[in-house]
């Protein structure tokens, strides 16, 4: 056995053992393994083992040109596909100095925020299912379906979107889309209240999450935690506010925070983010301008100037960044994807020890990991 796992044992209590959680386990939300060392039900140490779903996205980027890589980012995080797809286009647009028409910016904002809501809804359903509550899963997927239908009609895909283009979006939206979105917003505002009544007030849910999986304050800086996990610890940092990309600086929305840093705080932050996303969508729908949906002049050859650049966007899980090194050719010299789930899952050896096995499941669910994003 690995010497790192040897712990000083109480002579009276020799029943520590190792348990593989995964690679095939419903609560790891994908193919991932956590090597747990347990004393009864209590976790002594935890070591995530990743890479089962490694698809070499970064290597792929090095043997195809910038346009050919366009379908890839949405496959990296399949739940926030739209945000990754748009983010990649924005990174290239900034490097190349391509201007995006107003209408395209608004369409992107609406699609991004709808995607964020659908991602949070999937998280809500699966997280509660991890905790043993099956009903909210059906409610959340019902609502998520409505968003997927709206986006499906516009983009042609339901999960791994490839909708954005360098300089705009691939297809224009019509009035029916705006009407559908407006109807959804009205409907969903009431629905959030229902979720809160069902979930937040539930005594079993509170018992399972309050005070569970508290991230120690020093983890924030040492592990570079971002997204809702960070905001649940009282740091009001959101890439959309800190370094606004696209036209996020034109919208009025709040960055919800909580201070406890436990599973319950992370839930509250995400529930409030649903509401804030609706606010952004409503503002964008009512202000949607007419005009072209893609830039008239986009260079035929995408060749960012020589040098490195970094661009990050706020994904549903945290700060997703792309470090693009260009050598002035058609093909990226190196494209590094900085994914939030990778940082968050690496905190597990520091967070899990001392908790119960059932709480380890709750912690894993509450940080909202997407395994393909960890493995890339």
């Amino acid at each position, binding site marked *: 056995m690995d010497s790192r796992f040897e712990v000083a044992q109480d002579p009276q209590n020799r029943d520590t053992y190792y348990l593989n959680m995964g690679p095939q386990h419903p609560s790891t939300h994908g193919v991932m393994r956590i090597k747990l060392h347990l004393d009864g039900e209590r976790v002594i140490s935890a070591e995530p083992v*990743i890479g089962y779903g490694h698809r070499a996205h970064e*290597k792929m980027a090095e043997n195809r040109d910038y346009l050919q890589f366009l379908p890839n980012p949405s496959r990296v995080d399949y739940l926030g596909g739209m945000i990754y797809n748009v983010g990649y286009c924005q990174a290239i647009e900034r490097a190349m100095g391509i201007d995006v028409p107003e209408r395209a910016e608004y369409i992107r904002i609406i699609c991004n925020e709808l995607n964020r809501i659908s991602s949070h809804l999937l998280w809500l359903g699966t997280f509660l299912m991890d905790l043993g509550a099956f009903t909210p899963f059906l409610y959340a997927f019902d609502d998520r379906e409505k968003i997927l239908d709206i986006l499906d009609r516009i983009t042609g895909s339901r999960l791994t979107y490839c909708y954005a283009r360098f300089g705009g979006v691939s297809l224009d939206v019509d009035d029916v889309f705006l009407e559908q979105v407006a109807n959804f917003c009205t409907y969903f505002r009431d629905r959030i209240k229902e979720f809160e009544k069902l979930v937040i007030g539930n005594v079993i849910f509170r018992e399972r999450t309050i005070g569970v999986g508290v991230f120690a304050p020093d983890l924030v800086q040492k592990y570079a935690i971002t997204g809702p996990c960070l905001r649940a610890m009282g740091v009001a940092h959101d890439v959309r506010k800190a370094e606004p990309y696209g036209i996020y600086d034109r919208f009025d929305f709040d960055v919800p925070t909580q201070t406890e840093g436990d599973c319950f705080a992370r839930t509250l932050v995400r529930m409030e983010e649903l509401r804030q996303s609706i606010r952004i969508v409503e503002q964008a729908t009512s202000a949607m301008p007419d005009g072209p949906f893609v830039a008239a002049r986009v260079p035929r050859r995408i060749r960012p100037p020589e040098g490195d650049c970094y661009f990050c966007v706020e994904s549903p899980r945290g700060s997703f960044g792309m470090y693009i090194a260009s050598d002035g050719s058609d093909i990226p010299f190196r494209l590094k994807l*900085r994914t939030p789930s990778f940082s968050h899952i690496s905190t597990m050896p520091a967070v899990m020890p001392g908790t119960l096995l059932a709480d380890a499941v709750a912690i894993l669910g509450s940080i909202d990991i997407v395994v393909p994003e960890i493995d890339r």
Partner: protein
Amino acid sequence: MIADKLSSFIRDAAPYPERGYHLQGAALPCNLPQIAGVFLAEGFHLEMLTCQDRRETDRVFRLIYQFNRYGAPQRHVISADLSPDATAPSIAAIFPAADWYEREIFDMYGVVFDGHPDLKRILMEEDYVGHPLLKNFVDPPSPYRSE
């Protein structure tokens, strides 16, 4: 001010609107733990750590450390050129986030980090031979693949 403390390393300010980071600098690999310590003390976090295979043009591996701060962004990119047969010092003891990033670089490029608590492959399987992100990488023949 962080720039003063690292004045010997920070090369020049980078144009944020184009590059996405505010300052860039070059350091010798042996100075990296010292630099990381300064960033930790100043409240920065290690946002990203990556590597580039520049052996063909510059005969080096370029390690790229990106530090940032919460709130108003203060992104600092420190690069360190490492000759292909040298090892780099690990900063996992200073920033635990570097633990997995260094394992990833070891896995993908074969760069060895001295003082890393548990340097082993992270994304590729344990018995994999080769380092996939090297520019001269050739996929080794697999007994499980039919050609």
